């Protein structure tokens, strides 16, 4: 089962989100909404720091195979 923890939000923000999700379909609770938004934002930041998956030497080897197969 997924484990959960607690984070604190300003009461004013909590109420604002409650009002928002009351008008929108798809979110059962403020926690659902906050989880969704955080996943979106965190994924964006993680993407920014992803290293290149191969070196320039690797690239030359790969290009040779792609040429031999007629892809480039």
């Amino acid at each position: 089962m997924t484990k959960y923890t607690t984070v604190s939000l300003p009461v004013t923000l909590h109420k604002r989100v409650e009002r928002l999700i009351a008008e929108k379909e798809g979110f059962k609770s403020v926690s659902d909404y906050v989880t969704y938004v955080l996943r979106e934002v965190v994924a964006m930041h993680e993407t920014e720091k992803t290293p290149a998956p191969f070196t320039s030497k690797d690239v030359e080897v790969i290009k040779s195979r792609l040429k031999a197969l007629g892809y480039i």
Partner: protein
Amino acid sequence: MVSVPHGGELVQLDVVDPSHDAFNGYDKSLMLPVSKETEATVLNIASGILSPLTGFMGEEDCKTVLDSMRLSDDTPWSIPVLLHVASSFTPQVRDEIVLTDEGGSPLANLLIDERFKIDRKEYAEKVYGTSDPAHPGVARIFSSPDSVLAGRIRRFAARPGDPFSDVTLAPRETRVLFGEKSWRTIVAFQTRNPPHLSHEYVQKTALAFADGLFINPVLGKKKVGDFRDEVIVAAYKALIRNYYPQNCCVLSVLHYEMQYAGPREAIMHAIMRKNFGCTHIAIGRDHAGVGSYYRPYAAQEIFKEFPDLGITPLFFREFFYCRKCAGMANEKTCPHGEDDHLTISGTRLRELLDGGESPPKEVMRPEVASVIMSDPDPFVR
């Protein structure tokens, strides 16, 4: 810019010759022959198609995937990747075993991290939404042992002799290729059939918004009556040669066993194409479905649950030829009734092709039909 690998890092395991010392000297009790489908999974792990996995899942990941469609580190993942073994296969945690193909040739070294059991009924209900044994995915899980090994793949043996090696690219290769073509947006198209005109229109509509199209047919285990892999590849080559502008399309195959898990499988299809570098994936009606187990657009709706998937789905309604529109259309673009639509069931299409009769050109391109009909035996018997 192409998509970042799923989980942040593209897995690229050591590939060695099958005669490598790493595969020698093992006791027979440490050799595990696996099916062709598991062989494909091993290949997909080793080449990074299933990044960030580096092996078969442990119990914690399996549970969180079943319960919440996420790995235990919160990375989206919708179907467990498991190595089922008979309880008579005795190696234990920390043993290193050799996976072999059905003929006994080495495939990979696997270091066992865990051994556990799954509840196959729970698995079926969560992954397939049913425990009906008539569902092909359910039938497969019920016929698999409930005992499971988890562990990292340490080395992978190169697989010579793949008849499709000239159209099989690994993620690192597609990533370089897309870069060479200066594509920043790439739409993936998943398929398991030769192209109909309706598929072509999905692809071309998607291509209108993107720099490139990645056609990625699934090859592997088939049902009787399905098109053979060779026919699917030849048909796509004919379509691309005759109907696609140069430099807008890449054809590469994926060795993979369809699970027919509908919405959950659509997410896996997206993850695999993200690892190839695709930024978008086309998702049509009843994607990865079978029979009437899933709502027609369930595989589109599920994407709402993944704001962090890292690949954007493009949702399509089914295309058809409309006599009144005098062209291809779909229910979003065509106001006319079904009587004006030209549609042919898959069964009827197979009957026509099997009898040497070309389907209407509004359903299938003549060049594609010709390739299929010129094959002495285009179907799995």
